[in-house]
């Protein structure tokens, strides 16, 4: 390899490293964590839902661009949208995870849709790999929950914490 090219390559690497360090120092890079991941035992073998929280504690915005797992043929990101009394799902290809914010994938809002999950049992774990526009992949172990058990825990929490608020929401349509 000619020395000039090697020097150029080394120089580029050094510059990239310097840029990365600078970005780190000035708080200008996203810092992603994924927590509280769960996947429901599929009631229909063709599909089930997954939930988690994605947090960006860094100093720059990032975008979640996809989720993958060995436990399903495909993972899609969906938002539940209600319009004129019709509840439907809209696929999302990019979900912004802004600096200093967290995005919750939860029932009734954003959620993961696992296509062709096959057989999953409560207590199994499923590894989800999250891809981002800026950050490296982030993996998280999702716990497989029974649809009854999982829903029960979530809802008892809701009732205690913001049951009244839920009721207010329920008045919106009429």
């Amino acid at each position, binding site marked *: 390899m000619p020395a000039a090219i090697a020097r150029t390559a080394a120089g580029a690497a050094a510059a990239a490293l310097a840029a990365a360090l600078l970005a780190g120092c000035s708080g200008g890079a996203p810092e992603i964590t994924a927590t509280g991941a769960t996947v429901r035992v599929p009631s229909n073998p063709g599909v089930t839902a997954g939930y988690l929280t994605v947090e960006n504690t860094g100093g720059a915005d990032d975008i979640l661009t996809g989720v993958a797992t060995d436990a399903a043929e495909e993972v899609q990101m969906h938002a539940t949208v209600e319009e004129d009394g019709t509840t*439907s799902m809209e696929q999302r290809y990019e979900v912004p995870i802004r600096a200093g914010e967290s995005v919750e994938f939860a029932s009734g809002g954003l959620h993961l849709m696992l296509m062709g999950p096959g057989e999953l049992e409560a207590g199994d774990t499923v590894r989800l790999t999250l891809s981002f526009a800026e950050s490296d992949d982030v993996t998280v172990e999702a716990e497989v929950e029974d649809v009854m058990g999982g829903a029960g825990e979530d*809802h*008892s929490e809701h*009732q205690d914490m913001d049951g009244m608020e839920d*009721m207010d929401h329920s*008045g919106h349509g009429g």
Partner: protein
Amino acid sequence: MRTPLTAAAGAAAAVLLAGCGPQAATGDDSPYNGSEVKGAFTLPDADFTDSKGEEYNLREDSAGAYTAVFFGFTNCPDICPTTMADMAQAVAELDEAERDRLNVVFVTADPDRDDPELLDMWLGSFDPSFTGLTGDLETTDAAASELGISIERPEDREGDYQVGHGSQVLLFSPEGESELMWRYQTGPDAIAEDLGALLDGEGA
């Protein structure tokens, strides 16, 4: 000058109060957590096949017991399982006599994919006593429409597709007249409370 201003302020206050009214009504004036829709809808006289493969007329075969009706589809990953799990938990909170006087009916909005066998299996993960109904598209859509429930099915139904649908659960009296509507995420305890009040009221 003062009087018009005072009147305007009074009017503004009235508007603000009125603005709060509809939201507060469910919580304060009504004994129920759900919205009261007494007599707004009648169970349609529509023929379906139930999840055991038997004929089921929504009006006739539901008569004599309170009947909760939800339209959904089994390829729905979030809303439908959550609603059925909530209903199953609410029913589990009732005593046996109350449970005997209640039907829970799930009508598929996606009969192309949901056959009785699949509905039976799917409902089995929530409560095997729930009834799943499948009908032809025309019957299904007409029944939903009579109940003020929308269904939006894509024209192209190859491969994976989703069906938009109203996510409310309607509760009907033993005479087939609507009583209550629960919106999505009302929660099992709130639903059980309403069911208990209605079912006990009837019995007393």
